[in-house]
Protein backbone atom coordinates (compact mmCIF):
# COMPACT_ATOMS: atom_id res chain seq x y z
CA UNK A 1 0.00 0.00 0.00
CA UNK A 2 1.49 3.30 -0.94
CA UNK A 3 0.30 6.72 -0.06
CA UNK A 4 -0.17 7.58 -3.69
CA UNK A 5 -2.98 5.14 -4.01
CA UNK A 6 -4.49 6.36 -0.82
CA UNK A 7 -4.44 9.94 -2.03
CA UNK A 8 -6.88 9.13 -4.76
CA UNK A 9 -4.92 10.91 -7.45
CA UNK A 10 -4.74 7.63 -9.32
CA UNK A 11 -8.47 7.58 -9.83
CA UNK A 12 -8.21 10.78 -11.82
CA UNK A 13 -5.76 9.12 -14.19
CA UNK A 14 -8.09 7.41 -16.64
CA UNK A 15 -10.69 10.19 -16.83
CA UNK A 16 -7.84 12.59 -17.56
CA UNK A 17 -6.63 10.39 -20.37
CA UNK A 18 -10.12 10.25 -21.87
CA UNK A 19 -10.51 14.03 -21.69
CA UNK A 20 -7.05 14.38 -23.24
CA UNK A 21 -7.90 12.12 -26.13
CA UNK A 22 -11.15 13.99 -26.70
CA UNK A 23 -9.20 17.23 -26.74
CA UNK A 24 -6.80 15.86 -29.29
CA UNK A 25 -9.66 14.56 -31.46
CA UNK A 26 -11.11 18.06 -31.48
CA UNK A 27 -7.68 19.46 -32.33
CA UNK A 28 -7.29 17.00 -35.20
CA UNK A 29 -10.64 18.11 -36.59
CA UNK A 30 -9.28 21.63 -36.41
CA UNK A 31 -6.13 20.55 -38.18
CA UNK A 32 -8.21 19.12 -41.03
CA UNK A 33 -10.17 22.36 -41.30
CA UNK A 34 -7.21 24.73 -41.14
CA UNK A 35 -3.69 23.33 -40.70
CA UNK A 36 -1.98 26.71 -40.41
CA UNK A 37 -4.29 27.83 -37.64
CA UNK A 38 -3.82 24.51 -35.86
CA UNK A 39 -0.04 24.75 -35.80
CA UNK A 40 -0.12 28.34 -34.60
CA UNK A 41 -2.62 27.41 -31.91
CA UNK A 42 -0.58 24.40 -30.90
CA UNK A 43 2.62 26.24 -29.94
CA UNK A 44 1.39 28.36 -26.98
CA UNK A 45 -0.62 25.50 -25.48
CA UNK A 46 2.35 23.19 -25.80
CA UNK A 47 4.66 25.77 -24.21
CA UNK A 48 2.36 26.14 -21.22
CA UNK A 49 2.78 22.49 -20.26
CA UNK A 50 6.40 22.44 -21.32
CA UNK A 51 7.13 25.23 -18.83
CA UNK A 52 5.78 23.14 -15.98
CA UNK A 53 7.86 20.14 -16.97
CA UNK A 54 11.10 22.03 -17.59
CA UNK A 55 10.57 24.17 -14.50
CA UNK A 56 10.04 21.04 -12.40
CA UNK A 57 13.37 19.66 -13.52
CA UNK A 58 15.06 22.95 -12.68
CA UNK A 59 13.49 23.23 -9.22
CA UNK A 60 14.18 19.60 -8.45
CA UNK A 61 17.86 20.17 -9.12
CA UNK A 62 17.81 23.40 -7.16
CA UNK A 63 16.36 21.46 -4.25
CA UNK A 64 19.03 18.79 -4.43
CA UNK A 65 21.79 21.38 -4.57
CA UNK A 66 20.60 23.64 -1.78
CA UNK A 67 18.66 21.22 0.37
CA UNK A 68 16.17 23.01 2.56
CA UNK A 69 12.90 21.91 4.03
CA UNK A 70 10.84 23.76 1.44
CA UNK A 71 11.41 21.02 -1.07
CA UNK A 72 10.80 17.89 0.93
CA UNK A 73 7.11 17.59 0.18
CA UNK A 74 7.41 18.50 -3.48
CA UNK A 75 10.36 16.33 -4.49
CA UNK A 76 8.28 13.42 -5.68
CA UNK A 77 5.84 15.45 -7.79
CA UNK A 78 8.73 17.47 -9.21
CA UNK A 79 10.63 14.34 -10.09
CA UNK A 80 7.57 12.77 -11.69
CA UNK A 81 6.91 15.92 -13.71
CA UNK A 82 10.55 16.12 -14.78
CA UNK A 83 10.48 12.54 -16.06
CA UNK A 84 7.52 13.32 -18.33
CA UNK A 85 9.99 15.19 -20.54
CA UNK A 86 9.83 12.20 -22.88
CA UNK A 87 6.13 12.89 -23.42
CA UNK A 88 6.92 16.52 -24.14
CA UNK A 89 9.52 15.40 -26.69
CA UNK A 90 6.88 13.32 -28.49
CA UNK A 91 4.36 16.15 -28.30
CA UNK A 92 6.94 18.40 -29.96
CA UNK A 93 6.40 16.53 -33.24
CA UNK A 94 3.49 18.71 -34.47
CA UNK A 95 5.71 21.77 -34.08
CA UNK A 96 8.44 20.09 -36.11
CA UNK A 97 5.95 19.27 -38.83
CA UNK A 98 4.32 22.68 -38.86
CA UNK A 99 7.53 24.73 -38.87
CA UNK A 100 6.78 26.84 -41.98
CA UNK A 101 3.35 27.73 -40.61
CA UNK A 102 4.75 28.81 -37.28
CA UNK A 103 8.10 30.39 -38.11
CA UNK A 104 8.66 32.92 -40.88
CA UNK A 105 12.29 31.94 -41.29
CA UNK A 106 11.31 28.37 -42.17
CA UNK A 107 9.99 29.55 -45.55
CA UNK A 108 12.85 29.54 -48.08
CA UNK A 109 11.14 31.96 -50.48
CA UNK A 110 10.76 34.61 -47.76
CA UNK A 111 14.31 34.14 -46.52
CA UNK A 112 15.70 34.48 -50.03
CA UNK A 113 14.15 37.91 -50.37
CA UNK A 114 15.07 39.26 -46.97
CA UNK A 115 18.60 40.39 -46.27
CA UNK A 116 18.50 40.06 -42.48
CA UNK A 117 16.79 36.67 -42.49
CA UNK A 118 19.29 35.52 -45.05
CA UNK A 119 22.06 36.68 -42.75
CA UNK A 120 20.57 34.68 -39.87
CA UNK A 121 20.07 31.55 -41.93
CA UNK A 122 23.09 29.70 -40.54
CA UNK A 123 21.31 29.65 -37.20
CA UNK A 124 17.67 29.92 -38.14
CA UNK A 125 17.07 27.05 -40.53
CA UNK A 126 14.80 24.01 -40.13
CA UNK A 127 17.54 21.35 -40.00
CA UNK A 128 19.63 23.04 -37.36
CA UNK A 129 16.48 24.02 -35.45
CA UNK A 130 15.29 20.42 -35.24
CA UNK A 131 18.77 19.18 -34.41
CA UNK A 132 18.99 21.65 -31.56
CA UNK A 133 15.55 20.67 -30.28
CA UNK A 134 16.60 17.02 -30.33
CA UNK A 135 19.74 17.86 -28.38
CA UNK A 136 17.80 19.83 -25.76
CA UNK A 137 15.36 17.00 -25.21
CA UNK A 138 18.14 14.42 -25.07
CA UNK A 139 19.94 16.44 -22.41
CA UNK A 140 16.81 17.06 -20.34
CA UNK A 141 15.75 13.42 -20.46
CA UNK A 142 19.24 12.31 -19.57
CA UNK A 143 19.33 14.51 -16.49
CA UNK A 144 15.82 13.60 -15.35
CA UNK A 145 16.67 9.90 -15.50
CA UNK A 146 20.13 10.25 -14.07
CA UNK A 147 18.73 11.96 -11.00
CA UNK A 148 16.03 9.28 -10.81
CA UNK A 149 18.65 6.53 -10.89
CA UNK A 150 20.72 8.19 -8.19
CA UNK A 151 17.63 8.68 -6.03
CA UNK A 152 16.72 5.02 -6.36
CA UNK A 153 20.25 4.03 -5.50
CA UNK A 154 20.19 6.33 -2.51
CA UNK A 155 16.99 4.60 -1.42
CA UNK A 156 18.82 1.30 -1.46
CA UNK A 157 22.24 2.10 -0.10
CA UNK A 158 21.67 5.37 1.79
CA UNK A 159 25.30 6.14 1.25
CA UNK A 160 26.23 9.79 1.50
CA UNK A 161 28.38 9.34 -1.59
CA UNK A 162 25.24 8.72 -3.60
CA UNK A 163 23.64 11.83 -2.18
CA UNK A 164 26.77 13.84 -2.97
CA UNK A 165 26.84 12.45 -6.47
CA UNK A 166 23.23 13.47 -7.00
CA UNK A 167 24.05 16.91 -5.69
CA UNK A 168 26.92 17.24 -8.14
CA UNK A 169 24.73 16.16 -11.05
CA UNK A 170 22.16 18.68 -9.94
CA UNK A 171 24.70 21.50 -9.68
CA UNK A 172 25.94 20.82 -13.18
CA UNK A 173 22.32 20.39 -14.22
CA UNK A 174 21.38 23.88 -13.10
CA UNK A 175 24.07 25.26 -15.34
CA UNK A 176 22.82 23.01 -18.11
CA UNK A 177 19.18 23.92 -17.75
CA UNK A 178 19.75 27.67 -17.75
CA UNK A 179 21.76 27.36 -20.94
CA UNK A 180 19.39 24.96 -22.68
CA UNK A 181 16.28 26.88 -21.69
CA UNK A 182 17.89 30.08 -22.91
CA UNK A 183 18.49 28.57 -26.31
CA UNK A 184 15.17 26.74 -26.39
CA UNK A 185 13.38 30.01 -25.70
CA UNK A 186 15.36 31.76 -28.40
CA UNK A 187 14.56 29.00 -30.87
CA UNK A 188 10.95 28.34 -30.04
CA UNK A 189 9.63 31.75 -29.00
CA UNK A 190 12.02 34.59 -29.77
CA UNK A 191 12.58 33.46 -33.35
CA UNK A 192 8.85 33.90 -33.99
CA UNK A 193 9.90 37.52 -34.51
CA UNK A 194 13.14 36.70 -36.27
CA UNK A 195 14.39 40.27 -36.53
CA UNK A 196 13.88 41.06 -32.90
CA UNK A 197 16.27 40.11 -30.15
CA UNK A 198 16.59 40.72 -26.45
CA UNK A 199 19.28 39.18 -24.31
CA UNK A 200 16.93 39.17 -21.30
CA UNK A 201 14.54 36.83 -23.05
CA UNK A 202 16.15 33.55 -22.06
CA UNK A 203 16.44 34.60 -18.43
CA UNK A 204 12.85 35.75 -18.33
CA UNK A 205 11.63 32.51 -19.89
CA UNK A 206 13.62 30.38 -17.44
CA UNK A 207 12.12 32.28 -14.52
CA UNK A 208 8.68 31.78 -16.05
CA UNK A 209 9.29 28.02 -16.17
CA UNK A 210 10.29 27.92 -12.52
CA UNK A 211 7.26 29.98 -11.53
CA UNK A 212 4.91 27.71 -13.48
CA UNK A 213 6.36 24.64 -11.83
CA UNK A 214 6.15 26.15 -8.35
CA UNK A 215 2.54 27.11 -8.91
CA UNK A 216 1.72 23.66 -10.27
CA UNK A 217 3.26 21.62 -7.46
CA UNK A 218 1.91 23.93 -4.80
CA UNK A 219 -1.56 23.55 -6.27
CA UNK A 220 -1.13 19.79 -6.41
CA UNK A 221 0.01 19.74 -2.80
CA UNK A 222 -2.98 21.72 -1.60
CA UNK A 223 -5.28 19.27 -3.36
CA UNK A 224 -3.46 16.24 -2.00
CA UNK A 225 -3.60 17.69 1.49
CA UNK A 226 -7.39 17.32 1.49
CA UNK A 227 -7.07 13.56 1.29
CA UNK A 228 -6.72 11.45 4.36
CA UNK A 229 -3.30 10.12 3.54
CA UNK A 230 -1.76 13.56 3.51
CA UNK A 231 -3.71 15.03 6.39
CA UNK A 232 -1.55 16.25 9.18
CA UNK A 233 1.58 16.21 7.06
CA UNK A 234 1.19 19.46 5.21
CA UNK A 235 1.86 22.19 7.75
CA UNK A 236 1.29 25.91 7.31
CA UNK A 237 5.05 26.38 7.40
CA UNK A 238 5.46 24.20 4.30
CA UNK A 239 2.97 26.26 2.37
CA UNK A 240 4.51 29.45 3.67
CA UNK A 241 7.92 28.42 2.36
CA UNK A 242 6.46 27.60 -1.03
CA UNK A 243 4.46 30.83 -0.97
CA UNK A 244 7.60 32.81 -0.25
CA UNK A 245 9.43 31.13 -3.08
CA UNK A 246 6.55 31.86 -5.42
CA UNK A 247 6.63 35.44 -4.21
CA UNK A 248 10.32 35.61 -5.01
CA UNK A 249 9.75 34.25 -8.49
CA UNK A 250 6.79 36.56 -9.10
CA UNK A 251 9.09 39.45 -8.22
CA UNK A 252 11.90 38.10 -10.39
CA UNK A 253 9.49 37.71 -13.28
CA UNK A 254 8.32 41.29 -12.88
CA UNK A 255 11.91 42.42 -12.58
CA UNK A 256 13.03 40.83 -15.83
CA UNK A 257 9.85 41.74 -17.70
CA UNK A 258 9.97 45.36 -16.61
CA UNK A 259 13.72 45.77 -17.17
CA UNK A 260 13.42 44.42 -20.68
CA UNK A 261 10.47 46.67 -21.43
CA UNK A 262 12.07 49.77 -19.92
CA UNK A 263 15.34 49.35 -21.81
CA UNK A 264 13.64 48.77 -25.13
CA UNK A 265 11.15 51.57 -24.56
CA UNK A 266 13.96 53.92 -23.56
CA UNK A 267 16.35 52.93 -26.35
CA UNK A 268 13.52 53.26 -28.89
CA UNK A 269 15.53 51.54 -31.62
CA UNK A 270 13.71 50.64 -34.80
CA UNK A 271 14.78 46.99 -34.64
CA UNK A 272 13.56 46.54 -31.07
CA UNK A 273 10.62 48.72 -30.26
CA UNK A 274 8.08 47.37 -32.80
CA UNK A 275 7.93 44.24 -30.69
CA UNK A 276 6.25 46.13 -27.89
CA UNK A 277 4.27 48.46 -30.13
CA UNK A 278 2.59 45.41 -31.62
CA UNK A 279 1.88 44.03 -28.16
CA UNK A 280 0.34 47.12 -26.65
CA UNK A 281 -2.49 47.98 -28.95
CA UNK A 282 -6.01 46.60 -28.91
CA UNK A 283 -6.71 43.39 -27.06
CA UNK A 284 -2.98 42.62 -26.97
CA UNK A 285 -2.60 45.78 -24.89
CA UNK A 286 -5.40 44.66 -22.59
CA UNK A 287 -3.49 41.42 -22.08
CA UNK A 288 -0.35 43.38 -21.27
CA UNK A 289 -2.24 45.36 -18.65
CA UNK A 290 -3.70 42.14 -17.26
CA UNK A 291 -0.18 40.79 -16.91
CA UNK A 292 0.88 43.81 -14.88
CA UNK A 293 -2.09 43.47 -12.54
CA UNK A 294 -2.66 39.72 -12.27
CA UNK A 295 0.81 38.39 -12.93
CA UNK A 296 2.47 40.85 -10.59
CA UNK A 297 0.45 43.12 -8.31
CA UNK A 298 -2.28 40.72 -7.25
CA UNK A 299 -0.09 37.68 -6.46
CA UNK A 300 2.53 39.98 -4.97
CA UNK A 301 0.21 41.51 -2.40
CA UNK A 302 -1.60 38.24 -1.73
CA UNK A 303 1.64 36.37 -1.16
CA UNK A 304 2.84 39.01 1.27
CA UNK A 305 0.05 37.99 3.61
CA UNK A 306 0.63 35.07 5.93
CA UNK A 307 -3.06 34.37 6.30
CA UNK A 308 -3.19 33.64 2.59
CA UNK A 309 0.07 31.74 2.31
CA UNK A 310 -0.60 29.43 5.25
CA UNK A 311 -3.96 28.04 4.18
CA UNK A 312 -4.29 25.45 1.40
CA UNK A 313 -7.53 26.90 0.04
CA UNK A 314 -6.31 30.45 -0.32
CA UNK A 315 -2.87 29.69 -1.66
CA UNK A 316 -4.47 27.36 -4.19
CA UNK A 317 -6.37 30.35 -5.62
CA UNK A 318 -3.11 32.26 -5.98
CA UNK A 319 -1.48 29.35 -7.81
CA UNK A 320 -4.41 29.13 -10.20
CA UNK A 321 -4.12 32.85 -10.86
CA UNK A 322 -0.40 32.48 -11.56
CA UNK A 323 -0.88 29.51 -13.87
CA UNK A 324 -3.63 31.29 -15.80
CA UNK A 325 -1.40 34.31 -16.22
CA UNK A 326 1.46 32.13 -17.37
CA UNK A 327 -0.77 31.03 -20.23
CA UNK A 328 -1.77 34.62 -20.95
CA UNK A 329 1.86 35.68 -21.04
CA UNK A 330 2.86 32.87 -23.36
CA UNK A 331 -0.02 33.68 -25.66
CA UNK A 332 0.90 37.37 -25.50
CA UNK A 333 4.47 36.51 -26.53
CA UNK A 334 3.47 34.10 -29.30
CA UNK A 335 0.15 35.36 -30.66
CA UNK A 336 1.09 38.82 -31.99
CA UNK A 337 3.80 37.24 -34.14
CA UNK A 338 1.06 35.48 -36.09
CA UNK A 339 -1.73 38.00 -35.72
CA UNK A 340 0.01 41.39 -35.52
CA UNK A 341 -2.94 43.42 -36.80
CA UNK A 342 -5.53 42.44 -34.27
CA UNK A 343 -6.14 39.96 -31.53
CA UNK A 344 -7.05 36.44 -32.51
CA UNK A 345 -7.53 33.39 -30.36
CA UNK A 346 -8.34 30.04 -31.90
CA UNK A 347 -10.61 27.51 -30.24
CA UNK A 348 -7.98 24.98 -31.24
CA UNK A 349 -5.63 26.42 -28.60
CA UNK A 350 -8.12 25.35 -25.96
CA UNK A 351 -8.51 21.93 -27.58
CA UNK A 352 -4.74 21.42 -27.58
CA UNK A 353 -4.39 22.78 -24.06
CA UNK A 354 -6.93 20.24 -22.79
CA UNK A 355 -5.55 17.49 -24.99
CA UNK A 356 -2.01 17.86 -23.70
CA UNK A 357 -3.31 18.35 -20.16
CA UNK A 358 -5.07 14.98 -20.13
CA UNK A 359 -2.37 12.97 -21.76
CA UNK A 360 0.39 14.62 -19.81
CA UNK A 361 -1.43 14.15 -16.54
CA UNK A 362 -1.84 10.45 -17.23
CA UNK A 363 1.90 10.07 -17.64
CA UNK A 364 2.57 12.29 -14.66
CA UNK A 365 0.46 10.09 -12.37
CA UNK A 366 2.05 7.03 -13.92
CA UNK A 367 5.43 8.37 -12.78
CA UNK A 368 4.12 9.34 -9.38
CA UNK A 369 2.60 5.95 -8.66
CA UNK A 370 4.22 3.23 -6.66
CA UNK A 371 6.31 5.31 -4.33
CA UNK A 372 5.82 7.21 -1.13
CA UNK A 373 4.83 10.75 -1.81
CA UNK A 374 7.21 11.95 0.84
CA UNK A 375 10.84 10.87 0.57
CA UNK A 376 11.11 10.10 4.26
CA UNK A 377 14.26 8.06 4.14
CA UNK A 378 16.10 10.80 2.30
CA UNK A 379 15.21 13.58 4.65
CA UNK A 380 16.16 11.48 7.61
CA UNK A 381 19.66 10.87 6.34
CA UNK A 382 20.15 14.41 5.13
CA UNK A 383 18.98 15.89 8.36
CA UNK A 384 21.24 13.60 10.29
CA UNK A 385 24.20 14.57 8.19
CA UNK A 386 23.32 18.21 8.54
CA UNK A 387 22.95 18.12 12.27
CA UNK A 388 26.04 15.98 12.72
CA UNK A 389 24.10 13.22 14.48
CA UNK A 390 25.72 10.55 12.38
CA UNK A 391 29.06 9.36 13.55
CA UNK A 392 31.82 8.06 11.42
CA UNK A 393 32.84 4.49 11.82
CA UNK A 394 35.42 4.62 9.10
Amino acid at each position, binding site marked *: MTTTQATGIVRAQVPALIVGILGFIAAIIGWVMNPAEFYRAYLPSYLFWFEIVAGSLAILMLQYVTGGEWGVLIRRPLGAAARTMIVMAVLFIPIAIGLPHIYVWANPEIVANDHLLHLKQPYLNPTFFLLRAAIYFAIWILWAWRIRVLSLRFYEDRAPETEISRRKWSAAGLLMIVLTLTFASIDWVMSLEPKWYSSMFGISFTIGCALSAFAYVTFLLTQLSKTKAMSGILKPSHLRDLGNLMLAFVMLWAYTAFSQ*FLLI*WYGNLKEEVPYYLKRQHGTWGVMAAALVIFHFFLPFFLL*LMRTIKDRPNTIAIVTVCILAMRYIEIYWLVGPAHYPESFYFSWMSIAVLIGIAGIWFWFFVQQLKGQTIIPIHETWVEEAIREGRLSTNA
Partner: protein
Amino acid sequence: MGGIGKPITGLYGVIAEFSDAQALLDAANSAREEGYTEMDAFSPFPIHGLAEAVGFAKTGLSAVVLTMGILGGIGGFFMCWYANVISYPLNIGGKPYNSWPAWIPIAFECAILLAALGAVLGMLALNGLPMPYHPVFNVRRFDQASRDKFFLVLQARDPKFQLDEVRDFLDKFNPREVVDVPW
Protein backbone atom coordinates in the same frame (compact mmCIF):
# COMPACT_ATOMS: atom_id res chain seq x y z
CA MET B 1 4.41 56.92 38.04
CA GLY B 2 4.76 60.36 39.52
CA GLY B 3 4.46 63.72 37.83
CA ILE B 4 7.21 65.40 35.88
CA GLY B 5 10.05 66.66 38.03
CA LYS B 6 8.97 64.58 40.99
CA PRO B 7 11.27 61.70 41.80
CA ILE B 8 9.49 58.39 41.67
CA THR B 9 10.00 56.42 44.79
CA GLY B 10 9.15 53.00 45.99
CA LEU B 11 9.56 49.62 44.47
CA TYR B 12 9.63 48.89 40.72
CA GLY B 13 9.51 45.15 41.18
CA VAL B 14 11.38 42.04 42.11
CA ILE B 15 13.99 40.54 39.80
CA ALA B 16 15.38 37.04 39.64
CA GLU B 17 18.58 36.03 37.91
CA PHE B 18 18.96 32.72 36.08
CA SER B 19 21.94 31.04 34.51
CA ASP B 20 20.27 29.51 31.50
CA ALA B 21 17.61 30.30 28.97
CA GLN B 22 15.39 27.34 29.74
CA ALA B 23 15.09 28.31 33.42
CA LEU B 24 14.04 31.82 32.46
CA LEU B 25 11.50 30.61 29.96
CA ASP B 26 10.02 28.14 32.44
CA ALA B 27 9.82 30.79 35.15
CA ALA B 28 8.17 33.27 32.82
CA ASN B 29 5.63 30.72 31.63
CA SER B 30 4.80 29.73 35.19
CA ALA B 31 4.44 33.34 36.27
CA ARG B 32 1.92 33.96 33.51
CA GLU B 33 0.04 30.79 34.39
CA GLU B 34 0.09 31.88 38.04
CA GLY B 35 -1.79 35.02 36.99
CA TYR B 36 0.92 37.68 36.93
CA THR B 37 0.43 40.11 34.07
CA GLU B 38 2.98 42.89 34.56
CA MET B 39 6.39 41.40 34.01
CA ASP B 40 9.34 41.43 31.69
CA ALA B 41 12.22 39.13 30.90
CA PHE B 42 15.76 40.05 29.88
CA SER B 43 18.21 37.94 27.97
CA PRO B 44 21.48 38.37 26.09
CA PHE B 45 19.90 37.10 22.87
CA PRO B 46 16.38 36.60 21.53
CA ILE B 47 14.67 33.50 22.93
CA HIS B 48 11.88 31.98 20.91
CA GLY B 49 8.63 32.03 22.86
CA LEU B 50 9.82 34.32 25.64
CA ALA B 51 7.82 37.33 24.54
CA GLU B 52 4.69 35.18 24.39
CA ALA B 53 5.57 33.87 27.84
CA VAL B 54 5.52 37.37 29.31
CA GLY B 55 2.24 38.04 27.52
CA PHE B 56 3.23 39.84 24.34
CA ALA B 57 2.69 38.59 20.82
CA LYS B 58 1.96 41.27 18.24
CA THR B 59 4.67 43.67 17.19
CA GLY B 60 2.47 45.86 15.03
CA LEU B 61 5.37 46.52 12.70
CA SER B 62 4.04 44.88 9.53
CA ALA B 63 1.24 47.41 9.20
CA VAL B 64 3.63 50.33 9.73
CA VAL B 65 6.05 49.03 7.12
CA LEU B 66 3.36 48.24 4.55
CA THR B 67 1.74 51.66 4.96
CA MET B 68 5.04 53.48 4.70
CA GLY B 69 6.04 51.42 1.66
CA ILE B 70 2.83 52.16 -0.21
CA LEU B 71 3.04 55.85 0.71
CA GLY B 72 6.66 55.96 -0.46
CA GLY B 73 5.87 54.28 -3.76
CA ILE B 74 2.91 56.49 -4.55
CA GLY B 75 4.76 59.55 -3.29
CA GLY B 76 7.84 58.86 -5.40
CA PHE B 77 5.76 58.33 -8.51
CA PHE B 78 3.76 61.47 -7.82
CA MET B 79 6.92 63.50 -7.29
CA CYS B 80 8.33 62.54 -10.70
CA TRP B 81 5.00 63.04 -12.40
CA TYR B 82 4.33 66.40 -10.78
CA ALA B 83 7.82 67.76 -11.39
CA ASN B 84 8.18 66.66 -15.00
CA VAL B 85 4.59 66.80 -16.23
CA ILE B 86 2.83 69.56 -14.30
CA SER B 87 5.34 71.91 -12.74
CA TYR B 88 8.13 72.04 -15.29
CA PRO B 89 7.48 70.01 -18.43
CA LEU B 90 10.56 69.57 -20.59
CA ASN B 91 10.91 67.78 -23.88
CA ILE B 92 13.83 65.40 -23.47
CA GLY B 93 14.78 63.32 -26.47
CA GLY B 94 11.21 63.39 -27.77
CA LYS B 95 10.01 61.29 -24.88
CA PRO B 96 6.45 61.90 -23.72
CA TYR B 97 6.02 64.30 -20.81
CA ASN B 98 4.46 61.55 -18.79
CA SER B 99 7.24 59.00 -19.27
CA TRP B 100 5.76 56.68 -16.68
CA PRO B 101 8.24 53.81 -17.15
CA ALA B 102 10.98 56.22 -16.11
CA TRP B 103 9.19 57.09 -12.86
CA ILE B 104 9.15 53.48 -11.68
CA PRO B 105 12.77 53.20 -10.48
CA ILE B 106 12.45 56.27 -8.28
CA ALA B 107 9.01 55.23 -7.02
CA PHE B 108 10.52 51.88 -6.07
CA GLU B 109 13.46 53.41 -4.24
CA CYS B 110 11.17 55.77 -2.32
CA ALA B 111 8.95 52.85 -1.34
CA ILE B 112 11.92 50.93 0.06
CA LEU B 113 13.37 53.98 1.80
CA LEU B 114 10.19 54.86 3.62
CA ALA B 115 9.39 51.26 4.48
CA ALA B 116 12.88 50.77 5.95
CA LEU B 117 12.61 53.97 7.95
CA GLY B 118 9.22 52.77 9.12
CA ALA B 119 10.68 49.46 10.27
CA VAL B 120 13.54 51.01 12.24
CA LEU B 121 11.85 54.08 13.66
CA GLY B 122 8.69 52.08 14.30
CA MET B 123 10.66 49.45 16.18
CA LEU B 124 12.44 52.05 18.30
CA ALA B 125 9.33 54.10 18.97
CA LEU B 126 7.14 51.13 19.87
CA ASN B 127 9.91 49.79 22.10
CA GLY B 128 10.18 53.15 23.80
CA LEU B 129 13.81 53.58 22.87
CA PRO B 130 16.01 55.51 23.40
CA MET B 131 15.48 55.26 27.14
CA PRO B 132 18.70 56.04 28.99
CA TYR B 133 17.29 55.34 32.45
CA HIS B 134 15.38 52.30 33.51
CA PRO B 135 14.95 50.87 37.02
CA VAL B 136 16.40 47.47 36.08
CA PHE B 137 19.74 49.16 35.50
CA ASN B 138 19.83 49.71 39.26
CA VAL B 139 20.29 46.00 39.79
CA ARG B 140 23.96 45.39 40.56
CA ARG B 141 24.38 42.35 38.35
CA PHE B 142 22.12 43.49 35.52
CA ASP B 143 25.13 44.22 33.31
CA GLN B 144 25.39 40.44 32.98
CA ALA B 145 22.11 40.48 31.04
CA SER B 146 24.12 41.48 28.01
CA ARG B 147 26.64 38.69 28.56
CA ASP B 148 25.35 35.34 29.76
CA LYS B 149 22.71 35.81 32.45
CA PHE B 150 18.92 35.83 32.26
CA PHE B 151 16.53 37.93 34.31
CA LEU B 152 12.84 37.94 35.08
CA VAL B 153 11.22 40.95 36.74
CA LEU B 154 7.73 40.96 38.24
CA GLN B 155 6.51 44.51 38.51
CA ALA B 156 5.03 46.09 41.61
CA ARG B 157 2.13 47.58 39.65
CA ASP B 158 0.82 44.09 38.98
CA PRO B 159 -2.52 43.79 40.83
CA LYS B 160 -1.44 40.39 42.10
CA PHE B 161 1.88 41.73 43.42
CA GLN B 162 2.59 40.81 47.07
CA LEU B 163 6.25 41.29 47.93
CA ASP B 164 6.72 38.14 50.02
CA GLU B 165 4.66 35.96 47.71
CA VAL B 166 6.59 37.14 44.67
CA ARG B 167 9.92 36.48 46.34
CA ASP B 168 8.81 33.00 47.33
CA PHE B 169 7.39 32.35 43.91
CA LEU B 170 10.62 33.31 42.16
CA ASP B 171 12.72 31.34 44.62
CA LYS B 172 11.02 28.17 43.43
CA PHE B 173 12.81 28.29 40.08
CA ASN B 174 16.25 28.01 41.54
CA PRO B 175 17.48 31.47 40.63
CA ARG B 176 21.01 32.63 41.32
CA GLU B 177 19.52 35.45 43.38
CA VAL B 178 16.29 37.38 43.87
CA VAL B 179 16.53 41.10 44.61
CA ASP B 180 14.19 44.07 44.89
CA VAL B 181 14.38 46.71 42.17
CA PRO B 182 13.95 50.27 43.41
CA TRP B 183 12.66 53.03 41.14
